[in-house]
């Protein structure tokens, strides 16, 4: 019971603090959090996306747990989540993130294709979208963020 209460309190605290932490107004740059267990990808995607002035790479972490840690104390507009990670999959983390941070834009990505992962075809109305890692460009992230925001 104690554990449930503590968890409930934490979730409530986050829900209340969220409006202060995230999206308090229009932002000039899009704050991006990268979550991927591959250090090579983390380094490459940070340096690639970091070159775009519209994007600010807040952090690049190796697990879903670390991502929640960052989300709880940093302002993040968009999270780029790898689907297959050893401890907790991106798909599972995305569900919790979507529930806890309604204003957060979530983009799942993977080296595998949609077919490989069994993800249905692209659907603009979905809360969470999927982009294959090799098709990742700043415009796609910004487009998704704008669509989600409005």
């Amino acid at each position, binding site marked *: 019971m104690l554990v449930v209460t503590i968890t409930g309190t934490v979730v409530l605290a986050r829900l209340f603090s969220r409006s202060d932490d995230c999206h308090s107004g229009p932002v000039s740059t899009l704050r991006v959090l990268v979550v991927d267990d591959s250090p090579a990808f983390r380094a490459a995607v940070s340096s690639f996306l970091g*070159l775009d002035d519209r994007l600010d790479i807040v952090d690049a972490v190796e697990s879903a747990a670390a991502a929640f840690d960052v989300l709880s104390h940093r302002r993040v507009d968009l999270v780029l989540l790898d689907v297959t990670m050893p401890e907790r999959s991106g798909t599972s983390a995305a569900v919790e993130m979507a529930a806890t941070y309604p204003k957060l834009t979530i983009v799942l990505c993977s080296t595998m294709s949609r077919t490989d992962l*069994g993800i249905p075809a692209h659907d603009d109305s979905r809360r969470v979208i999927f982009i294959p890692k090799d098709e990742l460009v700043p415009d796609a992230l910004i487009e998704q963020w704008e669509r989600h925001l409005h």
Partner: protein
Amino acid sequence: MGTTPPLITGSEQAPLTALGRDIRSNLLADLVVQAATILVYVFVVRSSWLLVLWLIRWIVIAAIAVASRFEGKGHRQSALWILISGHCWGVVATAIVLPEFAPVGVLVLIGDIALLVPHASGRRTRRLIGLLVGSATATGALSLQSWTGLADEAPRWLLVGFIAGHLIATGFAIITSVRAAEDLLRSQAFRLAAARSRAASASDQASLELRLRLDAGPARVLDELGLAIDDIETAAEQGNTVEARRLADTAADRAQQGLRELREISHGLFPDVLATGGLRPAVQALVGTTSAGGPSVRADVTSQRVHRSSENAVYGLVGCVLTAVQAYPNTAVDIVVTPAGSRLRFALLASGPPGAGAASPEVGSVTLDRVEAVGGLVTVDEATTPEGWSWRASGSVPIDIGSVTETVAAGFGPDDETVTLAVFLRFSAWFAGIGGVVVAIAYALTGVVVLLVIVGVLVVVVACVVLARYALGTDRPGLAAALLSAESSIAALSVTALVPEFAPVTAVISVLPMVVTPPGVSRRVVQLTVVGQTLTALCSTVLGVLGGIDAGFETAPGWLVAAVLPLATGGVAALVGASTSASLTRLNDLVAATQRSLTRLVTGADDERRRIERDLHDGAQQGLVALSLQCRAIAIVIAKGLPDRLAPLLAGARQQVATARSDLDQLSRGVFPRRLASGDLLGALTDAAAGGPVAVHVSATGGPIDDIHGDVAAGVYFACVEGMQNAAKHGGPGVTVTIDVRRVDDTVIASVVDDGPGLGRSTARPGRGLANIADRIGALGGRWTLSSPPGSGVRLDIAIPLPGGPGT
């Protein structure tokens, strides 16, 4: 136009149909005998004895009919109990009415023992066999006295005809049943062994293809990217930013293209969605890619997860069907996968209008083997009618495969053909020897001279059996069978002539060589055995009925016969039961071991493919994604004119190429050695030895071995590498391993010898490595031995016949 008969694979069918067939053929034969008996009674001899026998038989027939009904409803154990109880009742009751019938009765019960073995298992079998042995012993004891006097009214010729006819019919029924059961098991063992060879070969072929695809695709892309980064740097240093940017964009595109190729390779290995999500999302994904502009597909697949290899077997079938119909929009496909008890049932139905151009799917034997490999069952039927064509594959796979880790080497060898004879001879030597001692003691106690003669006969029997065992040991099964026939004829005729009371036992002994003659001996030996032993059995019965020769056995005390006869009857029953069940059990074990070996090969290959898929995903795929992003970053940096940021990006990309290339190399080496792929077995072994932790000398002392390639080369290679790893594991540091491969006629002989401390008792337990060796060598029809003589190291010897040689 017409219907193709269904193609059935799998191991569920055989024993069931065999039991049903046995029961039905019994019933038919008994009804014919009943009709003949009543005709003889009405038109020939009005003997009340015949009528009593006729009535007794109706109870036996009723038991058979009830058993048949139970068997039809699937209650096989109850069917067996009813069938066998009926037989026991019939035999005991007949022996009371007609003591001379005892040999036939004992033979019927022995036949049941032989039949029992493949149908039942464990404690239930032992109980049934106990009932049969007990009834046989009781029959022998009951035949010592005439209880009713009914038979004495009948004419002598009717008795002899009745008994002889029954004897021959029963003898042949036993031989046919035992042989049928053996053939069934043997063909099953051969079919599984063939499936195992195909599975091993397909697995090697898949590894070789994977290696070639990795070398031609991603490895080449990484090499090109390495060169491209140098070119970008040169162009940037020369201030040619336009060219440098173009090169960087091209490199990014190339990395993306390499990633797509690698993704395709990975997907073909083991689809990630199947591993993580199971059959339902995996089939949905397949249907999703097929349905666009293709056939109409409906899939109803359970979301329950089952064993990975069971899922993969069904997925393989679905993939085959969808690929075959993909180009035909007017085809309809229906896929249903549902759990049913401990199994997962599947039904795939494809159909289309006539002349639509779509042929029904061709499902390769490897795909069907996969289903059988996991202990599954699949039936494929297709039909073409004026309305159109239809194709249906249905069956089931187990939800859990269970443990297949034991390491019995399953191989079908010449020993399996002669196992019944070998066991029979071993038991016979003991049986005749102990019998001789018992009779000698009886002679010492009573002084009856006939007993001394019988001791002499038993000495001859033991001598013949010893000779026959020697003949079998020196690989002359025909001679062994002939010696056994001669021995049993001498024993049966002389003992019956001297002691007619033993006729029941000796008649049975005389037909036994027909049951145990190995199938591989020459036709003439088989014919001689059948004719000679049938005649012997007849003569023995007639001698018994006629009362033998007057040799003076009547002077022996009654207790002697009363004590020895039941013992002898029980002994013979045990002898037959032991040898036929040894053969059938050996074959059953062989089928089970081959099935497990096949399962190990296929599940092992699945696990390996899944592992490689993971490694490719975590290594080379991430590397190529990172490289494509790094090259895009380089292009942007060059375009924006940020020279201070270019150098670290170029260094990072160069590092990334090196890491990804080394990951890929390491993975490729484990998949299939490059030199083995090019047919250089010795070179491949030398490479493997160089990469290992211990000193290894590789040689080919018998001359060049360039002509060993394909599956045999792969088998020798992987077995030697296992042996080498085994030596490194058990031999400790500083051990030296010597590998020698040579060709002797049409056989490849290889040995892996180390100079380590050898396998102590504690470490001699076979491990996973030995199971790998057993499965690989067994699949190629080869043999292997692992020896560790005290005071020296471990020695692994391998012999594999080359395809096309006389041994294959």
